């Protein structure tokens, strides 16, 4: 699964994307798994209310299932326009 990071999430984690092998069933499960990896992940995901997630380029919820998903993206609330 491709995991992408944008804006300050990308900066805290230190890379824009990575391939992750996971058996996580939901976005929340994936986040819990990532937080156990390293302090930078733990810090980036500390407050999920400040985060948004997209599954295969569609905005989604944190309790959404990951089955069949090929691309997960984490980022702060958007500030376009």
């Amino acid at each position, binding site marked *: 699964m491709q995991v*992408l990071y*944008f*804006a*300050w999430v*990308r900066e805290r984690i230190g890379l824009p994307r990575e391939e992750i092998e996971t058996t996580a069933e939901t976005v929340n499960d994936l986040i819990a798994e990532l937080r156990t990896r390293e302090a930078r992940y733990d810090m980036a995901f500390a407050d999920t209310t400040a985060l948004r997630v*997209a599954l295969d*380029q*569609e*905005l989604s919820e944190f309790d959404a299932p990951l089955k069949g998903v090929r691309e997960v*993206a984490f*980022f*702060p*609330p*958007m*500030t*376009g*326009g």
Partner: protein
Amino acid sequence: MIRVQAMPFDSGGELNIFSASVAGAGAVVSFTGLVRDVSGGLSSIEIEHYPGMTEKALGAIRADAMQRWDLADALIIHRFGALDVGETIMMVATASRHRKDAFEAAEFLMDYLKSRAPFWKREVTADGADWVASRAEDEDALKRW
């Protein structure tokens, strides 16, 4: 039409092209967003986006507007990358037979584009660079639609 680009563009020129292309629609509304140094000290902004998702999200927002209002056409152009003070960040334009439809649809496009299209702005000053925080009022603006 949707365009996501690093290149500067001429919003007045784009408005003229858009207006000329929509025969039958006498009311054209545009919104242009410009980089402004409101509090002093801003030297530039940087816009990050999510290639692929950006085009999809803008296309979906535009399609939604075309369905909700009686529009002849709707245009969204949004830049990414580095922009200097005074440069044009983005524009939307809508064309309709009715001015109310053109106005409402343009406001709708802007409200959704602000908090549902994957762009993130960073302001660069002499002291460094800071990500622009999202605003609760931008999220609230969506409740109108």
